């Protein structure tokens, strides 16, 4: 499969390891992966601020990615933007939208991988990205638990479960929002940090060593809070744990 790597703008600029790990992982499973340099940003920040005109963003996304069999991205919120918001705001990109995937859903649903190269002996807490959970349905949402509907499996936990002797710990209120929310993190700084600190406390209460997620945006916010308070927690994007020490 010819895969186009869609790297969120903030990962490109502020946290390349998540994208590097994604690239290595996909190559590990035997696929050819390219990073089209014409990409910049899916436009999520301006869309969430209320902008409706995304013509330039959509055009750039389409031209960058239309030639690939699949487009894979280490960010549920960016994929949710493409999958759910692009069709509302533009008629372009329909074909590209269909083949854009978040990394964990791609590995589980499309590649059906049975093992992962990563190794980790530390206690890992999964922070559930809200966009991943409730937009992409990457796992079961606590609001919907029960025998009413078949619930999707938690893709990230399934992948982490392939690490031998992995220790997954579940914080209380397992899918409460971290409070990042893009611009919310500065416009509503008070509540943003209150919610972030609540997640950190929940992770500490179950003695997590590492907090991971499908989204670096959540982790960047949580890490910022944790580092300021010198809390004993490390933050790693899911791709980095799953890829482990791949060259």
């Amino acid at each position: 499969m010819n895969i186009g790597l869609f790297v969120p703008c903030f990962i490109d600029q502020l946290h390349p390891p998540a994208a590097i790990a994604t690239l290595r992982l996909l190559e590990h499973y035997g696929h050819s992966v390219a990073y089209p340099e014409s990409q910049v940003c899916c436009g999520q920040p301006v869309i969430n601020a209320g902008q409706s005109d995304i013509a330039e963003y959509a055009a750039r996304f389409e031209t960058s990615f239309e030639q690939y069999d699949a487009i894979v991205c280490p960010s549920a919120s960016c994929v949710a933007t493409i999958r759910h918001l692009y069709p509302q705001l533009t008629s372009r990109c329909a074909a590209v939208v269909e083949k854009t995937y978040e990394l964990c859903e791609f590995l589980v649903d499309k590649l059906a991988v049975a093992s992962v190269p990563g190794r980790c002996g530390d206690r890992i807490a999964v922070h559930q990205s809200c966009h991943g959970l409730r937009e992409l349905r990457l796992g079961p949402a606590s609001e919907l638990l029960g025998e009413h509907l078949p619930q999707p499996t938690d893709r990230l936990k399934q992948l982490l479960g392939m690490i031998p002797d992995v220790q997954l710990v579940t914080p209380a209120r397992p899918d409460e929002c971290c409070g990042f929310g893009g611009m919310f993190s500065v416009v509503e700084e008070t509540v943003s940090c209150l919610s972030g600190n609540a997640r950190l406390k929940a992770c500490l209460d179950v003695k997590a060593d590492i907090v991971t997620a499908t989204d670096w945006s959540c982790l960047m916010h949580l890490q910022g809070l944790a580092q300021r308070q010198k809390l004993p927690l490390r933050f790693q994007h899911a791709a980095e744990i799953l890829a482990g020490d791949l060259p």
Partner: protein
Amino acid sequence: MKGHPERAAEFAKDATRVETTDRNMWTARSSRDRARAAVPDWEELRTAASTIKAHTMSRLDHYLTQFADSATANGIHVHWAKDAEEHNQIVLKLLREAEVTEVVKSKSMLTEECELNPFLERNGIPVIDTDLGERVVQLREEAPSHIVTPAIHLNRGQIAQTLAEHLRSDPDNDDPHYLTSVVSKDLRGRIHRSKVALTGVNYAVAELGGIVICTNEGNVDLAVATSDIHIASMGIEKIIPRLADLPVFLRLLARSATGMPSTIYTSHFTGPRQDSTMHVIIVDNGRSQLLADEDHREALHCIRCGACANTCHVTRRGGGHAYDFSTSGPIGSIVAPARDHDRYGSLPFACTLCGSCSDVCPVRIPLHRLHLSWRRRLLSQGHVSADKRRLLAQMNMVLRTPQRYRLAGKALRTALRIAPGLLARLSPWGKQRDLPPAPPESFRDWYRKHRK
């Protein structure tokens, strides 16, 4: 103009208050989860409720007429009010005709919205709220912070103090059982004495010409039974077509609100009792305008369960009063801006679009999507602050052009490397958070070096 961020920050200054509110509301959310698990057709019910409401709105004039005609045939006096002012005047006129000097009122968010209490008070008629939580906030001269549990932001100690101050109870006894008995003893006498009972309406059944009111305390039944005149205020959106539709909503309501399978009392009034009169006031007050708004009309489907507020981390930690509106929580953020774009323009942004509200909404209102829709509406109509517009312009400038984007990224990484402290001080981000560590290069740089 003070908006949600300022009010939330104000509320959060008291950490105990945040903890109390969050804990109480999360308890309600957990109870809701357990109750839902026991109903195998929960998702079908949600779909049915949503479909019934959507149909009803599409024929609302027909159902309002049917309701008014049936109710009138049942002996109920039906009044119509275009707006809050007209509603309040109708109530006042009825009270003056009855020569009452004090009235009791059970919980009605509509009367909160119309600011009925202060209006009647200005006209010499004090109003006593008989819902326990409402009575407590009334004594404190506060607005309710939550549509189902008005005093959810208070702890027992505060309530004990309030009751001691106003009802001469023991300030050191904060047992909820004692506190409850203090309030209900005080209310019982007032309820018996009051000739008029003011109530809200949970559901108005068109084919029946009757109304349904749900309570847990029994204050509605007590008040109506011991009065000669029952005045029930309802918004136009409270209509449902058939009696057979009622159980769809009732099976969802209490479970969503408090986790109980039903409210203790579900009272049906289809006409005045012997020797008494009954009035229903049908109120628009901006609802027909919301109905005409294609993008946000689903907000009228709301059945006032409060589940969205209970699950919303912003409401739980910033408090219900931060919304500065009769209804707090996600549904408040969608209904309020329709009334005043400027006063409530911050509400749709008081949201991380986490989607939890939409998943708990019993009538499937896509609440988080409506927040985003409001942002689009406010921006396109110019109701967004100059700061926000500037920021948006800057983002577009950077994010639409690769060269500018790479330059901005490099500048940011450089600044992070050499002056993280300064950067932290310049942005609200840095108030409680460290900035991310500066990576030596962008992914693109790495890719060009290692993969091309």
